């Protein structure tokens, strides 16, 4: 077996659109993948295989059993391990010649600019609106192309933001398509509604394709466009995005405004949810009878056996509200506190007279404290 670089990349150098010149560009390219999940795994795999010289991976999460259905870099032995370093190990084994940087922490407006600055191209593989708006805005401020992808059920979206195809100088971004995040009640993430595993496989692979096109300067990247894919109906439909004046109002326009912007708040702007701290929760559950509801999906970690609770995944909550006792205080928890906040809002609408709280920081914070 010959592992000389030229042999490794022969099949793509053979393409006249790429050639040795394109391969050199790929070797020099620096690509950051934010989120090593359903979208990030296939994108990482193909970009490493193609020889992208520097790959950055941002993810603060650990591998869970329920990830394996779609996050194809991981296997059973990886459960409980951090995703960023685990993914880095897998792609390093695939290609020793590339440099990999890992960021085993959450991307925030405080650290985003520093990280993104080091890369030519950003791939959005995140799973929540707050981070999507944050990454979008950071790319606009730093003038970096952003390859966006998102999935839901049997559908996916992909687009290239903040990049012009040279047909025009216009560079549009996520806020030109969706100036405001969805109402928290309508915000659906993968955890809540499910997704067919191959959908992020397809969209993440397309994100890698767009990245290679932009790096090599070939073809027509999806600039100023969103392509929507529906697997059940076999429909690909594209949307042309024009600049949107409405998107400018809330937009952090410079580094200082970006650092001061509260993305969690922006994406839950209609929230009126009472939270309960870990300490308060531990006190009241020992002193009175309360109803505790776990709204995570079945099989999510960590397992809770320290106290008793009702397990009603958020997706089933609306149908099961009538079965809840309204006599006691209700505390709802999920993994990190986002879904439980949605659940509290839902419960409040149907049970306006009950005292309902979301466990601040979720079961992860509780486990860390206990």
């Amino acid at each position, binding site marked *: 077996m010959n592992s000389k670089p030229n042999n490794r990349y022969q099949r793509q150098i053979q393409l006249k659109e790429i050639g040795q010149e394109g391969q050199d560009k790929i070797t020099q390219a620096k690509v950051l993948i934010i*989120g090593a*999940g*359903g*979208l*990030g795994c296939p994108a990482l795999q193909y970009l490493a295989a193609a020889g992208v010289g520097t790959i950055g991976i941002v993810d603060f999460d650990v591998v869970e059993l329920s990830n394996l259905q779609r996050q194809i870099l991981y296997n059973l032995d990886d459960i409980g391990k951090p995703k960023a370093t685990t993914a880095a190990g897998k792609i390093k084994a695939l290609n020793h010649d590339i440099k990999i940087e890992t960021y085993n922490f959450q991307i925030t407006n405080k650290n985003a600019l520093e990280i993104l600055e080091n890369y030519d191209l950003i791939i*959005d*593989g*995140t*799973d*929540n*609106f707050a981070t*999507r708006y944050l990454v979008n805005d950071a790319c606009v401020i730093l003038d970096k192309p952003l390859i966006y*992808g*998102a*999935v*839901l*059920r049997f*559908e*996916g*979206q992909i687009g290239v933001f903040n990049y012009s195809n040279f047909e025009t100088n216009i560079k549009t971004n996520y806020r*030109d*398509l*969706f100036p*405001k*995040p*969805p*109402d928290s*009640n*309508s*915000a*659906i*993430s*993968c955890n809540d*509604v499910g*997704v067919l595993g191959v959908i*992020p496989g397809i969209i993440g692979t397309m994100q890698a394709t767009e990245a290679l096109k932009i790096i090599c300067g070939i073809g027509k990247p999806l600039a100023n466009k*969103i392509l*929507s894919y*529906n697997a059940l*109906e076999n*429909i690909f*439909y*594209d*949307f*042309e*995005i*024009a600049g*949107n*004046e*409405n998107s400018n109002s809330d937009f952090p326009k410079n580094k200082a405004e970006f650092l001061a912007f509260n993305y969690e708040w922006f994406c839950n702007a209609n929230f009126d949810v009472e939270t309960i701290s870990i300490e308060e929760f531990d006190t009241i559950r020992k002193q009175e009878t309360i109803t505790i509801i776990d709204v995570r999906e079945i099989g999510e970690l960590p397992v809770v056996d320290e106290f008793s609770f009702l397990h009603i995944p958020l997706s089933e909550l609306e149908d099961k509200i009538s079965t809840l006792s309204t006599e006691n205080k209700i505390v709802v928890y999920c993994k990190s506190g986002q879904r439980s906040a949605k659940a509290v809002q839902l419960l409040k609408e149907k049970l306006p007279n009950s005292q309902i709280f979301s466990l601040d920081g979720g079961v992860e914070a509780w486990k860390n404290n206990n």
Partner: protein
Amino acid sequence: MEINLLAFGQIAEITGKSAWKISGIKDTNALIQDLEKQFPHLVKTNYSIAVNKKVIQENTAINENDTIALLPPFSGG
């Protein structure tokens, strides 16, 4: 005057269909009103509207055989 409607993601879930035809609608504001009356859940849902594949921001006239697509944001990754 018939127009074609395409719905994606949650919009298709709310309307119960991903492609259909309607008539008697002259512009996008009238379309939104009509849809929200038929499907009250749409009031709380945000989505972009494209007329013949171009995302619009303001009320836009609709002509015979135009295709109007309704695209909600997704967050899953």
